[in-house]
């Protein structure tokens, strides 16, 4: 059985999906382009961010799979929620996510995003990320190794190629549900007011 580098190489060379028959040729082409150029927002939200530099640099070299970093949310396709997510971070993540342009995907890293992890009884950490943002792929582990992250990405690529990854549509359709949950923990109306007021308020940080 092939594993590790060989498996990745095979995935890289081979066709990533077999369930493409239901797509039109334009859709197929668009999805093919999308899955081969995933721009990941350079944004670490928790301790899991420490696994991202090795994933993207020469040791594991995610760019051979078409995965690379993006500097701003407007250019990014994927946001990685890497690790525990406190209320304060959640507000920034939502803000960032809403600034990203469609199609956009969420990759959740680590057991904290799945069920709270070691912060299961923390007063300041959310327990299920999918209540607040639509999650395309969970990568579990504490912390997941770069291999796991790459595997998560490959699975995400497969879903994109098959036209199944459509979380941003889910977010738009069920916007009220997500907003309700977000406001329940953030304690105020979450409306994007794209001004610099949230860190330049009176007294400042």
């Amino acid at each position, binding site marked *: 059985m092939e594993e590790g580098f060989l498996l990745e190489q095979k995935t890289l060379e081979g066709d990533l999906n077999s369930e493409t028959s239901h797509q039109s040729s334009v859709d197929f082409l668009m999805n093919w382009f999308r899955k081969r150029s995933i721009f990941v927002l350079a944004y670490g939200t928790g301790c899991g961010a420490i696994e991202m530099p090795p994933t993207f640099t020469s040791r594991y070299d995610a760019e051979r799979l078409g995965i690379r970093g993006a500097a701003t949310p407007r250019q990014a396709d994927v946001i990685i929620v890497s690790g525990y997510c406190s*209320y*304060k971070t959640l*507000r920034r993540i939502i803000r960032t996510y809403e600034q990203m342009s469609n199609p956009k995907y969420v990759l959740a890293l680590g057991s904290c995003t*799945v*069920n*709270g992890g070691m912060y*299961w*009884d*923390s*007063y*300041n950490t*959310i*327990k*299920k990320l999918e*209540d607040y943002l639509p999650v395309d792929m969970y990568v579990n582990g504490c912390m997941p190794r770069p291999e796991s992250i790459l595997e998560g990405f490959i699975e995400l690529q497969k879903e994109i190629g098959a036209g199944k990854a459509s979380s941003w549509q889910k977010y738009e359709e069920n916007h009220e549900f997500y907003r309700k949950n977000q406001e*329940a*923990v*953030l*304690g*105020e109306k979450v409306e994007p007011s794209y001004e610099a007021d949230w860190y330049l308020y009176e*007294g400042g940080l």
Partner: protein
Amino acid sequence: MFKTIKSNFATADVEVKRQDLYKVVIKYDRLSALIDFLYNNYTYKILNAITCTDWIEEGHFALTYLITTEDRSNTFMIQTLVGREDTKVESFSKKFKQAQIMERDLHEMYGIDFIGNDNLKELSLENWVHTPPLRREFDTLEFVNEHLTFREGREDNVDVKAETKRLRALKKAQKEADKKAKEAADASALKENEDGK
């Protein structure tokens, strides 16, 4: 120095915790005077930290001020006890600039009011309306059960210790059973051999 401190500020002796660390417990109303005394007469110019311990059983907070000399060779721990409810404490943010953010943190986590500190806004929390979270009457698990939902499947997790014990016992029993079977097989083989002869 220790004698002056004992006679003027404290009721108890100065405790030498380590060669470079002294500790004294004083009444709250002498705190400011003692810090001034150390600041003006010696080189204790650096406020390292202000910490707070919640002694809920005794009904008070213990505020500890760590003051270090300029060359960082000696540290003084000045501990004072204040009440837990509607605590109002004098701020040292005018004297030590770094006290501002320490007091802001204590205000957020314990609800202590520092009079004279001009910015006591939330530091790491946002829109917090409940009991300050580091006070010991605040039950985090209760709060989580009330405000957040757990993913299903956590409730059937097994106790690791009990599970390990059970598995070990199973393994041991299996091993013994194997051993007995092997012995029996050996015995029968021997018997067959002897019979054959």
